[in-house]
């Protein structure tokens, strides 16, 4: 088969700049083959190389005492959780594939992150996701939303991975470019950590899993371009097709194989498929690797070396086996009826050599390809729109005279409304570990013996002590758009508050940086500043970042997305008694607010960037609430102390929609069963509060505030404790009855909780009907 000649046009079509191509020529000392050009193109895409973000990522805090595998070392970070156990977790985007083919795009996003976890030797036991769409009033958005949710459900449900939490926001900026970020967490024993290293010169290299096809050709390169009008038509072939059944078998077979000790190194074939897995494993081990494409199982006849190397067919793994132990691979993969093939060997040349049809089609230095991608310091310039944002004041924005009406509208606003339409499609209970289901501030899962990967037969098993993990994923993209630095901090702090509200202590963060085109200095400013905020907030909390994913070029012809650095945070709960949820528990309990009613020095009283301004006044502007780190850390610590003290019955973070929405949500418990809501009323007395706008008091989003309940008898004690620890706290009211009653200095309103619940619970289903 004749290969195309390497011309400047062909180089440009591969998204390599003339400078980058010059570098390829220097590395090779000759013109690349067509296959080599494809390989450099995907390995040096942003998705694989982080070439635009690497200098910024280096500023993030990645060190911590419990870190067993740190950021950037391997496919996922790993943190100690005590008793010889550890968690591996990571978040990754599948935005562009989902924009083009929502069901398969989202499904394979879940598949990819699952493989990142079991590649590390961990058993995947929980998933979350962070999704962004345009507004549901658009039929095209409803199609994307519905396709993405069913794609995630399809893959996770079939695999048997409980999807325990997540978040969904709807905003016009994501209309042509939805965000689909998939998180997965696995557990393992310290001794079970597997590495993606091609160690041991002479060791055989195995390919396991289904055959390679022409699907997903160069998906990583596609993910690193702006979406255009033509994307849907031209790029559909770049979207992979997922088979969760196959993934489940591959996972079980790999975990079983890892118990034998026959594995020297293991890596999934994710982005850039065979290319990335071979050159990265060799680069990590400082070795070389030689493979023979004629031995790679192929789904289509006459595939070219370019196609085989760049295919992103799913559910495939690369395994380096200790020489002499090949039969064990064969035995286990035959048991699971999975295809396998020995395709090459580890060498000491430092080169990645690929043969096909008796010819050498690739011969490149593995480490230079994997680790020496060009790095760019992009130009950054403060966006012009920020001047107007900062100048925004309330002139001409009247205070509300209809607070109940506003509350009802906010509760039914899709971003705030219950996401049960989404999570009831996810199996969130499989594996018998889900203690707190989707719908509370953080999901909580329980780890038990069968959560762990298998061990070799005959190994004496130590009893596995129960472990409780809390996890959450958060980011208010509007805040980041309106103030990238404060918004970045706020995303981290909200995640920390959500964990604190559930009774957990944070262990680590994985971040998914979704931004627009980095070549635009104003858009790069958003990236740079929000990362500075994330770094500062993580440092203030003492919580390390263990890895993550960058997704740039998120823009469609309609414009860039709101910058959305999604923060997934995982924490540990010391014992069952500390598990805390957001809903009110008993009649007569005292409702308290820990934190300020409204941040005292904010001229916008917490309304800048608020859901209220967006929904009621159509304004997406104003400086968002300041996120002072000292206050945020203090709140997390106080909450932890109060929960450990045993007095707190419920805790709910105030976020979008402010205090009134938080209180209403706390009136809604998780339903006992289908069509059986569990509701509880409350009376809130704010009649002595004066000097504040009503809308700011009820719907302002000042940071660092939590609504908690305690028994009436302990209310005074809890307020005193919070004050002694340096925070403001006050009693807001009492739990009881079937209505929500709110007394203000300007009057009072009352509404059956059942009515609020109906609007909140069914809002998305009604829009999707």
């Amino acid at each position, binding site marked *: 088969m004749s290969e195309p000649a390497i011309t400047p046009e062909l180089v440009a079509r591969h998204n390599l700049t003339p400078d980058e191509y010059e570098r390829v020529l220097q590395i090779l000392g000759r013109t690349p083959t067509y296959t080599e050009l494809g390989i450099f193109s995907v390995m040096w895409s942003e998705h694989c190389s982080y070439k635009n973000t690497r200098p910024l990522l280096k500023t993030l805090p990645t060190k911590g005492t419990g870190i067993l595998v740190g950021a950037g070392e391997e496919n996922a970070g790993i943190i100690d959780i005590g008793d010889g156990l550890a968690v591996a977790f990571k978040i990754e985007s599948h935005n562009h594939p989902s924009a083009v083919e929502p069901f398969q795009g989202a499904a394979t996003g879940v598949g990819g992150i699952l493989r990142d976890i079991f590649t590390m030797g961990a058993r995947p036991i929980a998933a979350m996701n962070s999704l962004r769409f345009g507004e549901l009033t658009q039929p095209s958005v409803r199609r994307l939303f519905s396709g993405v949710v*069913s794609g995630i*459900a*399809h893959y996770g*449900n*079939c*695999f*048997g991975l409980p999807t325990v939490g997540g978040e969904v926001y709807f905003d016009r900026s994501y209309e042509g470019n939805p965000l689909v970020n998939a998180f997965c967490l696995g557990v393992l024993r310290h001794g079970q950590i597997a590495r993606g290293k091609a160690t041991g010169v002479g060791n055989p290299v195995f390919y396991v899993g289904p055959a390679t096809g022409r699907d997903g050709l160069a998906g990583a390169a596609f993910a690193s371009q702006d979406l255009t009008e033509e994307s849907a038509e031209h790029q559909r072939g770049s979207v992979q097709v997922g*088979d*969760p*059944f*196959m993934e*489940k*078998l591959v996972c079980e077979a790999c975990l079983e194989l890892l118990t034998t000790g026959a594995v020297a190194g293991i890596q999934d074939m994710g982005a850039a498929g065979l290319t990335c897995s071979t050159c990265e494993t060799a680069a990590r081990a400082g070795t070389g690797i030689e493979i023979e494409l004629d031995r790679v199982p192929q789904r289509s006849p006459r595939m070219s070396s370019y196609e085989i190397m760049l295919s992103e067919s799913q559910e495939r793994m690369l395994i380096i086996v200790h020489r002499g132990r090949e039969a064990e691979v064969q035995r286990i993969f035959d048991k*699971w*009826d999975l295809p396998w093939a020995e395709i090459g060997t580890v060498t000491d040349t430092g080169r990645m050599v690929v043969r096909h049809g008796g010819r050498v089609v690739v011969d490149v230095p593995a480490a230079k390809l994997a680790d020496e991608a060009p790095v760019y310091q992009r130009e950054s310039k403060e966006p012009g729109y920020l001047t107007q944002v900062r100048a925004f004041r309330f002139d001409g924005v009247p205070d509300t005279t209809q607070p109940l009406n506003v509350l009802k509208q906010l509760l039914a606003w899709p971003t705030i409304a219950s996401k049960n339409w989404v*999570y*009831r*499609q*996810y*199996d*969130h*209970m*499989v*594996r*018998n*570990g*889900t*203690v707190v*289901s989707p719908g509370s501030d953080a999901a909580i899962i*329980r780890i*038990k013996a*069968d959560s762990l990967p298998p061990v070799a037969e005959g190994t004496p098993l130590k009893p596995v002590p129960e472990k409780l993990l809390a996890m959450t994923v958060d980011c208010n993209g509007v805040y980041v758009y309106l103030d990238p630095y404060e918004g970045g901090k706020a995303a981290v702090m909200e995640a920390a508050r959500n964990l604190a509200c559930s009774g957990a202590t944070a262990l680590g963060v994985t971040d998914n940086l979704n931004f627009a085109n980095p070549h635009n200095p104003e858009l790069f400013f958003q990236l740079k500043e929000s990362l500075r905020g994330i770094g500062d907030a993580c440092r203030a909390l003492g919580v390390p970042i263990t890895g993550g994913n960058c997704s740039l070029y998120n823009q469609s012809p309609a414009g860039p997305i709101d910058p959305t650095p999604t923060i997934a945070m995982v924490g540990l709960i010391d014992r*069952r008694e500390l598990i805390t949820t957001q809903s009110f528990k008993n009649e007569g309990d005292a409702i308290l607010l820990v934190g300020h009613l409204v941040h005292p020095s904010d001229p916008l009283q917490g309304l800048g960037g608020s859901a209220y301004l967006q929904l009621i006044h159509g304004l997406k502007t104003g400086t968002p609430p300041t996120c002072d780190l000292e206050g945020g850390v203090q709140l997390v610590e106080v909450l932890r102390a109060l929960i450990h003290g045993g007095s707190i019955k419920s805790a709910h973070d105030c976020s979008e929609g402010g205090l009134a929405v938080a209180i209403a949500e706390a009136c809604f418990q998780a*339903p*006992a*069963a*289908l*069509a*059986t809501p569990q509701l509880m009323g409350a009376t809130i007395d704010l009649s002595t509060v004066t000097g504040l706008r009503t809308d700011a008091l009820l719907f302002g989003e000042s940071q660092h505030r939590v609504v908690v309940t305690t028994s009436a008898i302990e209310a005074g004690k809890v307020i005193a404790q919070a004050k002694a620890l340096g925070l403001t706290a006050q009693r807001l009211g009492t739990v009881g009855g079937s209505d929500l009653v709110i007394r203000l200095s300007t009057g009072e309103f009352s509404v059956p909780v059942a009515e609020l619940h109906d609007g909140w619970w069914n809002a998305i289903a009604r829009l999707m009907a």
Partner: protein
Amino acid sequence: MQFAVLQFPASNCDQDCVYAAQVLGHSARLLWHKSSSLAGADAVIVPGGFSYGDYLRCGAIARFSPIMQAVAEFAAQGGLVLGICNGFQILCEAGLLPGALIRNRSLQFRCEMVHLKTLRHDTRFTSQIPANQPLRLPIAHGEGCYYASPEELALLRTRGQILWQYCDANGQTSDESNPNGSVESIAGVINEAGNVAGLMPHPDRAVEPLLGSSDGRWVLESLVHSVQRN
């Protein structure tokens, strides 16, 4: 008491069934689909999941596996067999239980708690379930809409083969409390001989208060009671 829990490729509630048996103080063993012996088990659980990827139809491929031949023989000799979720689908496909399970009427997968009314308390799968109190159990399925022809339904009714119906908190059946459009809100049935039963909800996921309900124990304890009495 020894349960056998079948393990097909992509069974995913196999471990949950073993765990549930253990929580109840019994032992359970996983049996690989290629095996053709039940290894002396007292009762068989066909667990939930997506056996063989649910290709073709849910349960359609699993019924041909070697282990299912052993289960059919075990059932023919009066052995106790309980199918949960995908296991229920497999037992229907294998002809061990009447009826069929088709796509949920919503066309969506559903995972949530439901209330269940137990219609008979004199069977080997329900004897330990308290009367007049709906069970709370989780469901997690995309194809749980029970279907049987009007003639079959009439037979099921006269023979008392309907064991469980979806209902509300007061034990009343209604469209609102039927999560998948099952005919007559049927959630589970028993064979004519009374030794094979299946249901879509998951008793295996409801054995500890920590996870929200322990009502599933009543179902599993009914099996135990039946085996130990014989």
